[in-house]
């Protein structure tokens, strides 16, 4: 079962990843096959697990005190461009160009 070009393009758009070549796509398909093994287990009536902690309460609650911040200079050191202590970004999201408009391996498939 192959992953369609539409899905691949959609994934590249959503996650800004680049499947680059046949090997990249193949790796994805193998990963999906691997994960699909989960379907072999009957999980009727079983709650999905998203933490091995299960019901053992462990979420730490912090007191509402101000303990951080005031490090504008340090934070802006990482910025390529800044304007008066603001980070600078393009005017809006620059979407990944559509499949037809870019040179990508996916075009050929």
């Amino acid at each position, binding site marked *: 079962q192959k992953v369609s070009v539409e899905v691949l393009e*959609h994934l590249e758009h*959503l*996650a*800004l990843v680049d499947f680059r070549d046949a090997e990249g796509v193949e790796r994805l398909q193998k990963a999906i096959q691997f994960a699909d093994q989960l379907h072999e287990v009957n999980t009727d009536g079983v709650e999905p697990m*998203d*933490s091995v*902690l299960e*019901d053992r*309460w*462990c*979420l*730490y*609650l*912090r*007191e*509402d*005190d*101000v*303990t*951080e*911040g*005031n*490090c*504008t200079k340090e*934070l*802006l050191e*990482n910025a390529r461009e800044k*304007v*008066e*202590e*603001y*980070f*600078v*970004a*393009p*005017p*809006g*999201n620059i*979407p990944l160009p559509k499949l037809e408009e870019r040179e990508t391996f996916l075009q050929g498939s």
Partner: protein
Amino acid sequence: LAPWVPVVGLEIHAQISSNSKLFSGSQVQFAAPPNSLVSFFDASLPGTLPVLNRRCVEAAVMTGLALNCSINKKSLFDRKHYFYADLPAGYQITQQRVPIAVNGSLSYSLCIDNKMSQMVTKTVRIKQIQLEQDSGKSLHDDTRSQTLVDLNRAGVGLMEVVMEPDMCCGEEAAAAVRELQLILQTLGSSQAVMAEGQLRVDANVSVHHPGEPYGVRTEVKNINSIRFLAKAIDYEIQRQIEELENGGTILNETRAFDSKLGCTVPMRDKEGKQDYRFMPEPNLPPLILYDAKSLPANMNHQQVINIDWIHERLPDLPSVKRKKLVEQYGILPEHSFTLLNEDGLAEFFESVVKRTQMKPKKVIGWILKDLLSYLKQHSLTVKESPVSSFLLADLLNLLEKKEISSTAAKQVLAELWKGEGKTPLEIVKEQKLELLQDQKELEQICQAVIDGHKNEVIMMVLG
């Protein structure tokens, strides 16, 4: 032509009133130097982790209880992914699967036909309340084709309150939001000031014919006041009706309200249906809340949130306060609404009542007609009133003791507005407004008038 049924649902984001942010210890404050209230976690620097703020959880529980919700003793955090310059992590931590509170209701009141004397109570169901992070702020600089990003707001705690589409027009939505605002302010869980972005409302609007399925809905954003909320919704309802009656279709899109033009316009940057790729937040275990029954014995007090403890300490909600005002002072229900609608007015009223012999039913007239209209005319809040409750009480006492007439009282009040520091008694003496009580003096005055107008008297006697 078949009638149209408009359907309105709301998604409201209320900023939690807390010292620090939802998952970090940087300060929550409106208007501070850009990027000064930002921690490494807020800026999404690698290696940082979220740490949940207890106060934010309490605020959400209080709000859930006030809105008659079931509080989920176990709720979960998720990541909602999308790219935007003011969301440094590329995802927002929210509660998509199991939010902290569900299935509540909010009752609000409306005046029929704009007559305050005819109020009707309506209810809107609350689907859920979830805790989530706020994003930073983007300042669009179109001239230089760039966006300036300030992360001070990034990570501030929000309560998203989702109201089911039980409303049918702008007026209902506005009334529901106003009541929610009062509740939040009473609880203190949010200051809910729309102008400062502490309360943001998005409206979901659709229309359909009775008996038919719901129509396609649009989402209306960028609404900055309760007044504009009603306008935006009513405009959108009309737009959809006209579009459909002209044979057009409604797109499932996001539209922005343009307050200057009074209309909704499609929003730019809309990249089709968003796929947020929700996933559990791996860095946060489930949030467990307790009640009196389930309270664990050997746990650090500070790490435990007891729903019942919070419930017992909830203050009187606006609806309860109104009822008490009506019962205690014998005022009309619509009066109690106005009293609670103005910040500080109910306290002002009660302060006057305490200091005067005049019956509350009469005092309320002075508060709602004279005081309030003056404040509105000059755009003053109750706190800014040049006439204090003490001064007004003194004035009403003079009136009640029949030392001045009602007309004179209004004159004195007009003088008091000037805020020159004079007492009502001083003004009465200055302007000689005292009612004459002496019978002989009154007779003398009347006789003098009659003597001075002999012709008119004869005309009157002759009929």
